[in-house]
């Protein structure tokens, strides 16, 4: 098997969760809310840093919970 074939048939680059996964709705909802982008961009204009701020979601969860308690 040549390099190209080896690369084609290998699992390199494949994600562990596919868009058709049972949990994909939940994962997408959580990650899209948490996704943040750095204010700094590289000289070439590429937005360099992506990160997830899970506190955003957990705070929302706390607020909902306190509303339910009221």
């Amino acid at each position: 098997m040549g390099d190209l074939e080896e690369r084609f048939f290998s699992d390199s680059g494949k994600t562990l969760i596919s868009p058709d996964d049972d949990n994909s709705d939940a994962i997408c909802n959580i990650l899209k809310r948490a996704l943040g982008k750095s204010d700094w961009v590289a000289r070439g204009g590429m937005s360099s840093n992506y990160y997830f701020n899970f506190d955003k979601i957990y705070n929302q969860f706390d607020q909902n919970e306190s509303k339910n308690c009221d």
Partner: protein
Amino acid sequence: MIDSYIEGFHAPFVKELLTLVKAQDINCIGLIFPNQGPVGVVQLRGVLAERIAVPTVIIRINERLVRNQVWFERSDTAYPPLSPKSKVMLLGDAATSGASIYCAALIVRKFGAICEHAFVVFDRLQGASERLDAKRIKLFSFIDRNFFESRGELNQSDISHDGKASRFEFESVRAII
């Protein structure tokens, strides 16, 4: 609603991570501390500690001094989780150029530990996997850009890619560490 979403994310995330940890015989997880502060996977440290019996260390890639680059619990100081016997898997938020992951791997390797695997929540598909492969680091990603794209969650500015900048960023890591 949101609580079921949280579990719907945590459960598969931990399951996939645990599968990798077992398959690759990992005995330490290195959380990459992002430039933006204690966000992302660092916030998931509690969840990991609760569900995975593998010690975690925090790797601060922006610190210049070696003594400030790796952080762990005070109780671990007698037997630090990062030693030449360690097999470390790096855990990060997003992979763009792969520079942060490579930087963290070089820090871990300075302590004599083996570091050949990395796991990120989000792969932006901008060449990180291929570049890290060449440095003997296999990148696993939980989701990638196609996942968000297939659901219409990304706009054009998120997808635009400056290949030259990310290559330079990656190649300049050696000079920093």
